[in-house]
């Protein structure tokens, strides 16, 4: 066990855990931030996507010991009150079915639009293909990303 100081959603947090513990479980089990989801544990489904200094990262493959001073943002910290353009677009397009994968989809989409505010269809597909949606909301996700892109660039 070891003590780690972390910057999460703009706040300082301390946890005393096994250094190999993936951030996914630090967030879920130790910090009560359960919006970040467990789907596979092997970086194949994207449900655990968070931002590390603003870039989409699979938290199931991110040991707490390597985070250091880098800032982590989870779905709970993406906006104050669902007012991030990607969240707004998700609500407008009514994307979710079961909803379990959507936090990861949203975090990945927000990261994509930050680096590429006007992605083409192919760029959206390529960037989002690591995020599984078992319910099959892919066409709505794409629509919502385009909606958010339009609003960001308006």
């Amino acid at each position: 066990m070891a003590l780690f100081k972390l910057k999460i959603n703009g706040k300082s947090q301390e946890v005393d855990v096994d250094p190999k513990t993936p951030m996914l479980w630090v967030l879920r089990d130790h910090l009560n931030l359960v919006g970040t989801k467990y789907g596979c544990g092997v970086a194949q489904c994207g449900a655990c996507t968070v931002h590390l200094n603003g870039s989409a990262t699979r938290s199931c493959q991110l040991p707490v010991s390597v985070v250091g001073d880098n800032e982590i943002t989870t779905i709970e910290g993406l906006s104050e009150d669902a007012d991030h353009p990607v969240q707004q677009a998700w609500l407008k397009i009514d994307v979710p079915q079961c909803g379990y994968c959507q936090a990861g989809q949203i975090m990945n989409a927000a990261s994509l639009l930050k680096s590429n505010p006007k992605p083409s269809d192919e760029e959206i597909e390529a960037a989002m293909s690591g995020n599984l949606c078992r319910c099959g909301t892919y066409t709505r996700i794409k629509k919502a990303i385009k909606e958010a892109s339009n609003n960001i660039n308006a």
Partner: protein
Amino acid sequence: MSVIKTRVGRRTFLKTSAAAGGGLLISFSWLASCKPGRTKEEILAMPEEWFKLNGYIKIGDNGVVTIYSPNPEIGQNVMTSMPMIVAEELDVDWKNVIVEQGKLDEDSFKNPQFAGGSLSIMLGWDALRMAGAAGRRMLLEAAAKEWQVDVDSLSAKNGMIMEISGARSVGYGEIATKAVGIEVPEDLEMKDPKDYKIIGTAKKNVEGKKIVTGKPLFGLDFQKEGMKLAMIHHPPAFGMKVKDFNRDEIVAMDGVSDAFIIDSSTAEPAWTEVNAFNTLVAIIGESTWQLMNAKKALKVSYDTESEPESSDTHSARLKKDLKNGKVLESRLDGDPDAAFANAAKVIERTYTSPFIAHNTLEPMNFYADVKENSVELIGPVQTPKSLEERVSAMLDIPVENIEVHMTRIGGGFGKRLYIHYGMEAAAISKKLGAPVKLIYTREDDMTQGTYRPTYMSTYKAGLDENNNLIAFSVKGVGLPEGPVFPKRFPAGAVDNYSAEKLGSETNISTGAWRAPRSHFTAGAEQSFIDEVAELAGKDPIDFRLELFERAKSNPVGEEHEYDADRYAGVLKLVREKCNWGQDTPGIHRGIAAYFCHNSYVAEVIDIRMDKGQPIVEKVWCAVDCGIVINKEGATNIIEGGVVDGIGHAMYSEMKFENGKPVHNNFNTYQLIRHSQAPKNIEVFFVENEISPTGLGEPGLPPAQGALANALYKATGKRYYHTPFSTAPQDQIDMEVG
């Protein structure tokens, strides 16, 4: 206006009580998202007192209405659509409605609380409307009594009761207190569908904002003070049983507080208890990561209970039992053998599909707190009533002392009809003497079983010299049960018809998987019909319409399951919408239609080929499910069905080696991804006033056939075996080796 007897639900719907203080979780944030322009203060001005009109409805003194949604929410969107029906008949403004998940209490809801068979809306239709209408009537009666006027001189609308003369009006919230103890008449008036203001509109998911902000909604997110975490280990192969394990080493590990073997079986298992692995190692601790590490350190010994099976065993068994399997269901019209012998053209094709896993993205999990004579169970389950009953049987604790609460469910697809994980959580809590949340890893989940069975069906058709279909037969087997529905299409449309559903066996545990048997049969039958139409030199839609005309005007044999007019209706609608017959260079088009779960769906798929792989450019869907409750949710679920159908037809399969499932995670088990999904899906609903039927499943089955038929147009090759992306597509050698 239709009239429904309250008699069935009388005991429930007459019950009124004041539930002071609310006492339940109220979703302020959701209200905020629905009421733009309201200040935070206004939103927080929640009722000081709630009045419970019946099991579904609670009205606040300020007019805010809470509607409890009775059924499990697995993504089929019933948490929005079921309360919409109540709100319609209660006649309140949807903006003033808060929805909460009801707990298991079928006496109060007067409605079977399960998510399965696409039945929630169909079975709940009367109870939900009655709940709303009874509430409205109680408020009307209360106002009439208060004003000393005849109830017929009043009307109720949008949360207000008004004198028809226009003299007085009162809000539901103000009069709700007086509704306590009011009797409801035996007959209740329901709205005419023409007057619907909520049903048939497009409403956003009531939990949308919670989902996009990552609120704790799912079973895996549930936490309670003093709760331990638990993980299980089941044998790596079917046919094996846990015997013993290295307990001393495991309990010495960091973060492990206990480890033991549990048995979650009952003496007379219900169908929902399908489970190849009732005996499990359970490890208890404080953190998921430490438990995952402990699982890796397990050394377990096993007994062998039955012969291990491999995919080769399964293929051979399917071939053998397609010839010799026990007939479970059948139908025979005319004399197919004689008709085939006399036919000018005969065609025979065999179709297969492998075992597949459900792979809900939220792995199995459940919270259980077993005390000496009571149990609390909280988590994701499609059949909460069965869980209650079976835990009662397992622990010998009366059902009255068992509480089941349903969390939002991260995918169902049939997997969570089977309650083993809830029972395991209860067995662990009992042995531990403490509340516990059981968590499956993805690997546990994918290798646990309850798979969609593997299937094989042979179709045969005979045409006369004028290309009329004079004989049709289908024989289908599965491990353990065949996929054939003898009374479905083309039963009733062919003079000489035979259908046989055959049984076999396997030690792989199997269960219902979204549109059980229908998904396979639709894919096989609709591909075959396409090939028969081609042999007959007919347009595939015209060919089907001819058969429906026959089934309607001069049906063959005893009754068939489908309504030929509605079946033809969706074909005609999709034909019109997609502009069938147009020829776009590079685009290849396939069609399929299927009836299941009392609904009719036709789909046209347009593909183009790119480096040998199909790109689905567009899918048109025509759906007849009777009255559509929520256009938004209904469209979403049909889109999802199409993606699910295409995905599993193209990519997914579970194989076995020596009893062991060869895939245990998404790195090798393929599911459809963004880049493989259709570029565009358009959904059209037939407008009618028929009582609503299934939607969660019927969108899926036609997708495979439509895709196979489009692939044929693109490649000149027929697709008989899933997954299309990897399985060899030749007709298989049916010689049993």
